[in-house]
């Protein structure tokens, strides 16, 4: 079961809303599909992120993949621990493996995200081809 207090995108990001602050991460499904994680590149505090745009990159064996933001806003905190310890993301993607915190400028963007149940259905469809 995916955490029910989070909102999800069909491209495997999650968001935890806390007032005007959103915590962003990628799901366990995304982590498993990337396979062994090698490096991560995250934005700096003060950078702007935009809904749908890449805010960072992650290298796994054989691929560098964009990390995309489901919301628009300003980065107010970055999980710097990941730079030295990507196992946090590999082992606990919904907890200590969070990526960035964003002060959102358009909270209505959250409405486009889906619930944990809807995300599970999406995964089942995707796995079914």
């Amino acid at each position: 079961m995916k955490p029910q207090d989070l909102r999800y995108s069909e491209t495997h990001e999650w968001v935890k809303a806390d007032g005007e602050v959103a915590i962003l991460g990628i799901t366990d499904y995304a982590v498993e599909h990337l396979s062994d994680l090698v490096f991560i590149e995250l934005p700096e505090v003060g950078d702007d992120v935009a809904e749908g745009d890449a805010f960072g990159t992650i290298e796994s064996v054989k691929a560098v993949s964009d990390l995309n933001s489901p919301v628009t806003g300003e980065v107010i905190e970055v999980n710097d621990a990941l730079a030295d310890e990507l196992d946090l993301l590999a082992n606990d993607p919904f907890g200590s493996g969070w990526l960035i915190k964003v002060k959102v400028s358009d909270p209505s963007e959250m409405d486009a995200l889906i619930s944990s149940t809807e995300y599970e259905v999406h995964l089942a469809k995707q796995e079914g081809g």
Partner: protein
Amino acid sequence: MNSWRLLWDGHRSPFENMARDEALFRSENKRPSLRIYGWDPPGLSLGYFQRSDDDLASASTITDAMPVRRPTGGGAILHQQEVTYCLVLPADHSLSHGIPLAALPVPESYDAIHSALARTLSLLDITSGRDDSPRNDSFFCFDRRSPHDLIVQGKKIAGSAQRRSRERILQHGSMKLRGDDRVSGSIGVNDLIPAPMTFDELGRTLVKGFEDEFGVKLIPGTFDGKEEAAATSFASRYKNLEWRQSHTKRD
């Protein structure tokens, strides 16, 4: 039969080569594209996250190839005596396997594309296998070992790397014409067949390998105007080996 765009792109500088690959990756053109190219002058490409200080200094003692940083991960590659390919597909493309590439685990999608390289070798009666030795992280890609690399006689003959966005998947890689003594783990097609092949001959065989493997027809084409403009713009960025850091800091 589906048709893909074939970009037979000649020999270009390391900066141009990486810029033209990225221009295809960022293109709005959704048609699958296969670019075939070589390197003049020879290039030493570094992985996106690869450090360039001590190891590069060490590498400079064995080659004066022009360094450039790739948009993809992995280890350093010495680009000479090889044919290089770059395949760019929409992320929802399913090749001939029925499942969108983006829905496959990364190593499986890599392997699915790499099967065209194995097919190419089989057209030359070269039997290749996948690498099952433990992964290592040597500076040079062709000294590295990871599953899905193509191995002949215990040496790596082809290796690739991917870049993924929401919209696109790029995979580019090298097939060696000759193994390089300076990189201990490499072997080339011409080390294995009686009559040596030219760049053009191996390139054409590679195209046929993609056509046969995926049941498509590759139709010769060119970069469109926007892609050419993007490539020109990106080339100036790639001239700075540390472009990734400058990009990250959003100067």
